[in-house]
């Protein structure tokens, strides 16, 4: 599904990603953990094509296609979805119109006719139930005045509508109380199909109790310094990241320091 090879990326001349390697197969859930400033959100931004980031080296293949040469909208059409850490407010644009425009672009890309108004509303109602989102939110402007929980739920709702092949959840747990976290995680799990994959970016192990990953990567200082099974999350929760930082410095310097 996704193959990242030696990815280097910088913003404003400052190198953030310093050679990321990652292989994600269809059906897998990977978690990317790591301390603040390690490059987790930059990785998400580079994968989705956010302007301002410069890829200096490496390649990313998404279902065999070169992801990095695609525009953000093409990546979306190909089946990539990012649940934003900070969903953007768009005053004056209603959730309905926003979603209709997005969905019809996807359908156009697939060579399908736009959905009729009634088909669209039916689909929307169905998906809203899935993420337990209030129907009143649909007529309101995108994310404007939404609570933190509503914004994140709205992200998962959009994901449900667009049915991506690969979803990247960037700190979807931040700012959520336990109930909202459960609802969001539940939505993600319900949407999971054997042929779709998920990358969960998070600081904490908490979310991983609900969305259980197959593989956990630790990103530190722009590199993946450890890859292991789900048990790693518990170890991190207990020991923090410091022991990995030491390990990374060992890898970097190539020698032991007493």
């Amino acid at each position, binding site marked *: 599904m996704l193959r990242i090879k030696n990815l280097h990326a910088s913003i404003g001349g400052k190198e953030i990603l310093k050679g990321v390697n990652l292989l994600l197969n269809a059906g897998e859930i990977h978690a990317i953990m790591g301390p603040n400033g390690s490059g987790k959100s930059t990785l998400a931004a580079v994968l989705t094509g956010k302007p301002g980031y410069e890829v200096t080296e490496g390649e990313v293949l998404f279902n065999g296609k070169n992801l990095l040469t695609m525009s953000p*909208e093409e990546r979306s059409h190909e089946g990539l979805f990012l649940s934003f850490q900070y969903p953007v407010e768009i*005053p*004056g*644009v209603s959730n309905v119109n926003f979603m209709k*425009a997005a969905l019809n*672009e996807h359908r156009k890309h697939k060579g399908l006719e736009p959905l009729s108004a009634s088909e669209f509303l039916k689909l929307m109602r169905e998906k809203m139930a899935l993420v337990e989102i209030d129907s009143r939110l649909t007529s309101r402007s995108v994310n404007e005045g939404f609570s933190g929980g509503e914004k994140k739920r709205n992200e998962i709702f959009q994901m449900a509508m667009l049915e991506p092949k690969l979803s990247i959840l960037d700190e979807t747990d931040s700012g959520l109380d336990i109930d909202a976290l459960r609802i969001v995680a539940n939505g993600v799990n319900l949407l999971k199909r054997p042929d779709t994959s998920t990358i969960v970016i998070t600081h904490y192990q908490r979310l991983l109790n609900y969305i259980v990953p197959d593989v956990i990567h630790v990103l530190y200082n722009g590199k993946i310094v450890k890859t292991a099974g789900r048990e790693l999350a518990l170890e991190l929760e207990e020991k923090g990241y410091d022991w990995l930082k030491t390990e990374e410095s060992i890898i970097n310097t190539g020698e032991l320091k007493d």
Partner: protein
Amino acid sequence: MKHEFNDMQEINLVDYFVNLYLDNMDLICENVGDAMNIVRSEAIENFNINSIYNRENEKYKHIDIKKIFSDSYEKYFVPAALGISNEIFICDVSDLNSYKIFLKNGFYSKKNEKLTTLENGVIYGSLSEASIKYPEIFKKYYNKISDGENEGLVALNTAFAQDGVFIYVPQNVIIDKPIQITNILLGESSTMVQYRNLFIIEQNAQANILICNNTFSDSKFLTNCVSETFVAKDARLEVVRLQNEHNLSNHFSFSHAKQERGSVYTDNTVTLNGGVVCNNISALLAGEHCENHTFGLFLVDRSQYVANYTSINHASPHCKSNEHFKGILDDSATGIFKGKIHVSPHSDKTEAFQTNNNIMLSDASRMFTRPQLEIYADDVKCSHGVTVGRLDEDALFYMRSRGMEYRQAQLLQLFGFAYDVIGKISMELLRSSVADLVEKCLRGELSQCIGCTYQCKK
């Protein structure tokens, strides 16, 4: 009668118009009521003193207004025979169920039946005809709130105006559908038109008025129009102006309103297209508990110029005013907003708010904005705010990451920005029609000849 300027520099503009007036006085005063004629000589006197513009008010700092008024235009004092029937003109909002009025180059278009009286007593139609038929009303209202003493162009209009639209809504009448005025500009050669509107909404009455401005031939036009609106005690009036003239048109408008106690007046000016557009909108809140809403949206591109000058005058306590203008500017267009709020000394408990937001899509576009609050009362709530910015890049990326193309994301964001103003139009059908037009305009698909079956050159 065509007057050519052989050498603009040498011929004084003011003298030209004064002479034009004197030469055509008889024609101008023909078929017009006394109330309109009696104020002309003072008006031309004022114009003679003030000229086209008052240098002190800095209004025309960014355009060469002298040049605009010096250009050669045909001026008609009897309606020109245009040889085209009314039926072919459909304005931009053609499917609206409304009472329709057409003005051709400022003259009421119907030859017979110049005034229509509805069963409920509502009167609408030709201003000149009404000025003859209803001298008492004209004596009371005509030229009472326009500011010819300080505005040269208002004085000029008062001297020359022969026709326009008259609307009278009697006490307690709630008019069942909007009155739609379509101002049509057309002609083989450059034409200047000066017309006048008088709207009177009596006590406890309610009305909606839609004014569409369209050009139907590719000649150059210069419009100088003045409207006076009286909203009596507890009356409600909403006026929507839809300006969609071509790039060779110059449009100067002065809309003055006076509100009595407890009245609600909403004014919404949507400028979709025009060469030079200069809107002057003023409201006098003369009684307590008035509510005034003044909204505006302008979309400008190429070398267009759109200016909105507003003046909200709180002359009584316990009144509320809310003003919001939004602009989208592209290419090398120029936008101007100057909003004045005046709160007179005894007008306590005033609430007056003003906002102006602008999006600049290009480096070469220019926006000049200036809030001007003069508050002489102590116990008031007043605020103003201005923003000039670009599109929100984060929002654009957000939309693109959901699959929308850049252009579409941009349009959706712009439309969202614009809808803030359009959404305030109370009539649903009109609101959606205007929304469609704005969307078309943003897409660059709006023609200035929509609905016109007359095959002109363009």
